[in-house]
């Protein structure tokens, strides 16, 4: 026997930010989304709305999406003021229409930050994150044949904590949720995932100084310790990593002030 479906049908009003291009004026436009299944994902709902717009000859709503299973970090959208919608620890693609009531008005906006310039409608350019990652540089590693597994001992607790940080999918929800559009949670996760492991030690100081310096130069805001970032993070990354990064940054700054520089120094990651 097949279980009865739990799906309900609902109608909502979408209030979507429409903006044709980076320099075009933007505004909210209301769309009626009818006969939706409550088991649709939020992105499927947007697909349905876009189909209707296309049939009518209107420009569909541009939104970023890729894997639709919460691991790629491509989907964005601020839904009713909260990045990735009402759920905790999930991305927009994992948000389902059952989170909303029939007759709701749902406001959908792009992630808002100067460092994330708008491309079109709900799509923003998050390549500022790539530039921060680039600034972090490489880790020195032996090349050649693959090393033996467990050749470098890593304490379990450190490995687990590094994995917590490495869960960051770089979606930018932390920036979008922060009252100051600060990228501290993202940068702290990226700094910590290597800083916690033995393989990350040689370039540890350089990494934190360069990544924080690049973050500041890109026009992200400052941290006021309100922890909206970790509350909005689809991977529930803890703001403890921010404290860890602050500690790393202070230590690295002190060490950098006294560190001798070789006469022939040029290039390299530090």
């Amino acid at each position: 026997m097949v279980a009865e479906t739990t799906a309900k049908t609902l109608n909502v009003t979408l209030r979507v930010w429409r903006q044709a291009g980076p320099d075009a004026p933007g505004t909210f436009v209301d769309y009626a989304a009818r006969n939706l299944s409550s088991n649709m994902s939020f992105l499927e709902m947007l697909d349905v709305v876009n189909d209707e717009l296309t049939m009518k000859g209107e420009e569909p709503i541009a939104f970023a999406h890729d894997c639709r299973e919460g691991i790629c970090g491509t989907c964005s959208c601020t839904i009713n003021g909260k990045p990735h919608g009402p759920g905790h620890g999930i991305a927009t693609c994992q948000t389902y229409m059952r989170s909303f009531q029939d007759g709701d008005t749902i406001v959908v906006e792009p992630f808002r930050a100067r460092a994330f310039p708008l491309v079109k409608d709900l799509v923003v350019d998050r390549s500022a994150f790539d530039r921060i990652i680039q600034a972090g540089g490489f880790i020195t590693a032996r090349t050649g044949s693959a090393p033996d597994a467990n050749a470098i001992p890593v304490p379990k607790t450190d490995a687990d904590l590094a994995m917590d940080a490495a869960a960051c999918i770089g979606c930018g929800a932390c920036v979008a949720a922060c009252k100051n559009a600060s990228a501290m949670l993202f940068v702290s996760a990226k700094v910590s995932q290597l800083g916690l492991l033995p393989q990350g030690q040689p370039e540890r100081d350089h990494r934190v100084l360069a990544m924080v310096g690049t973050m500041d130069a890109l026009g992200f805001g400052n941290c006021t310790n309100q922890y909206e970032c970790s509350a909005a993070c689809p991977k529930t990354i803890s703001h403890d990593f921010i404290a860890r990064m602050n500690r790393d940054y202070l230590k690295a700054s002190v060490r950098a002030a006294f560190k001798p520089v070789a006469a022939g120094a040029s290039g390299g990651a530090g």
Partner: protein
Amino acid sequence: MAITGVILIGFVIGHLVGNLQVFQDPDHLNGYAAFLHHLGPLLWVARIGLLLAVVIHIWAATVLTLENHAAREVKYGVKHTIQATLSSRLMRWTGVVVLAFLLYHLAHFTLGFVQVATFKENLQLYTMSGDYRVAGFPVVKAGAEVLDVRTMVILGFQQPVVALFYLVAVGLLSLHLLHGFDSLFQTLGWRSEKWARALRAIVIVFCAAYFFLNATIPASVLLGRLKVAEPVHPAAQR
């Protein structure tokens, strides 16, 4: 912000401990005030240091706020807060009110620009009935004529508007510290999930205690529990 914050938190604790001497014999608060004045150059080092801490604190807050506003040029249509505390969202406003209070406080008790009639220099001198000791050393001797700071404080708070402003300002300062004191551990990298709860509890208890202990002074004056002391040696006064 964190480092100047630590300095200022240290100061407000010391200031509160000093103030609570108002409940003791008049010798205590008046002797304490005379002792601070006799520090001479040290007093000025402390004053300039505190002034610098306040200026840097405000300067940093202003620069950071301007940067933060610039970091989000287009605001959200829907303003939503997930879990940021009230105190953290009101920092700017509590800070401004505390600054306004600080200016009034200095004009009132240090410079004598307001409530001039009850300013310490316009009151009769107080004659110490005993020694005022710091760490066992008598720093202000019995019989010394000192400014009657205690009477100035009590007369100042007998005006309900001033006492209420003081209560509001101290309340908002406590609210300011509720976020600020907690926040500095994060900024300096001393906070972690393991002791975040304990830290939060310590900060809440500190802020509540700070508010209630401060509030006891104007409250006691308004309720008539704290009165101007009768002169011990009327003949010795000018």
